[in-house]
């Protein structure tokens, strides 16, 4: 610790959030958003997930080392570390499961365009592609093969009706405003607009909330 660190600690205006803490905040926000949004959200940028995974791995190794010496004093520290580890694991697991559930429900939709594909992580893309291939092969061998070749596709868009199911982007969501901003929403009878204040909780359609969330002016709750 040098003099700068000491000064920083006593300076009330300096509020640097350490990286680990910011990662937890980002992961929590991503988890809540993924659990609430009707469609799959982009995979977090900036290597957030990889960093957290590495940290978890390192922490598990540390726990394994610490279980060796059973000193009652370190014992409690071990309990704390393991409790926190379990909390992190739950967050990560729940987040990934929420994403997989969405990918499973609308696999072809998320594989249909490059924009949508970019939302998936590498692993998820591999999973979705393989899962869809297996499914299609299974359908082919069980019943599709007896159909005329023109009817064997699963992604027909003939007659203006797409076979690909897409998530309902107009589903209602709750958002919390993170700063004062104008909120616009489309309604059945009229389109609404309000001057939102910070920490307002607003119900509106996801398609209207999306630009605000993406700009960081609001978050899903």
């Amino acid at each position, binding site marked *: 610790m040098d003099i700068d660190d000491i000064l920083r600690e006593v300076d009330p*205006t300096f*509020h*640097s*959030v*350490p990286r680990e*803490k*910011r*990662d*937890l*905040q980002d992961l*929590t*926000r991503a988890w*809540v958003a993924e*659990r*609430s*949004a*009707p469609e799959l959200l982009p995979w977090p940028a900036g290597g957030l997930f990889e960093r957290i995974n590495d940290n*978890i791995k390192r*922490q598990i190794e540390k726990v394994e080392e610490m279980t060796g010496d059973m000193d009652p004093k370190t014992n409690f*520290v071990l*309990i*704390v*570390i393991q*409790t*926190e580890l379990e*909390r992190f694991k*739950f967050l990560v697991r729940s987040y990934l*499961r*929420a994403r997989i*559930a969405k990918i*499973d429900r609308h696999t072809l939709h998320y594989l249909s365009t490059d924009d949508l594909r970019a939302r998936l992580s590498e692993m998820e893309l591999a999973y979705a592609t393989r899962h869809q291939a297996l499914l299609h092969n299974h359908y082919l061998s069980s019943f599709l093969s007896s159909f005329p070749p023109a009817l064997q596709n699963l992604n027909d868009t003939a007659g203006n009706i797409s076979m690909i199911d897409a998530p*309902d982007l107009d*589903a*209602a969501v*709750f958002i*919390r405003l*993170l*700063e004062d901003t104008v*909120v*616009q*929403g489309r*309604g*059945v*009878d*009229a*389109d*609404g607009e*309000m001057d*939102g*204040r910070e*920490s*307002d*909780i*607003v*119900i*509106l*359609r996801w398609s209207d909330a999306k630009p605000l969330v993406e700009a*960081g002016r609001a*978050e899903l*709750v």
Partner: protein
Amino acid sequence: MALPLPPGLNHAEVAFLAEMEMVTVVPRQRLESINLLSGQTPPLRPPHRAELPLWLALLLKKQRRANILPPPWLHPSSLAEIIHRETKEDPVTFSAPPPPPSHANPHDPGTARRVRDADADANLAPPFLPSCTAGAPAGYLPYHWLEVAEALLTHAGDDMAAPAGDVRSLLRDLVEVRAAKMRSSTSALEGFGGGLMSLRGVGAMELAESRGFVLGVVDGVRKIGASAEAARREEEELGGGREDDESDEDMGI
């Protein structure tokens, strides 16, 4: 296996989130700083106060290694004040959420400025705001008020400023008052034609409780009125945004 839960956080998940709130503890034993995944914990030296996440504070409390200082808003007088405000002053909307944290601005004495993280691109939000610490303002309910209060009363009842029973009965009143508001706000949903509804000051648990119902109603109204809405949009495009009240009556909702 993929997640079988419907969208939106359920009660257990909200409670999990609330355990990330920071609270103030008074340690009874020394404990060195622990290197956790979410960063270093402050070293605990009695009788110096320290801020820890709720889950860790509860763990220390259960092992009788620390006492938890209840947040000022959980004091009976603060709760009574909030109940008064919720019932008498504004019987329709929820009481206001806590103001964003701020502190004195050394460059301009006498003024305060927001606590803002310089390099974060977005503002902090609950559960990462210090709204349940000993320094939180009294008279405002934070987003996770019910979960935090419940956890503190259950596990740290002896640390309360008043007998836990008294605080509990005040909390129950508050829950009932606010539940009634939540119910009456659903009647506003009936005419959810405007596309927006604000529930400023609502709590996380209250939201989790009525999420399914509220979202179901909003989505239902949208689906029933989809054709009317499409017709209105078409009309507006043709008629240059002329408002028409007829569609309201046609809907019959």
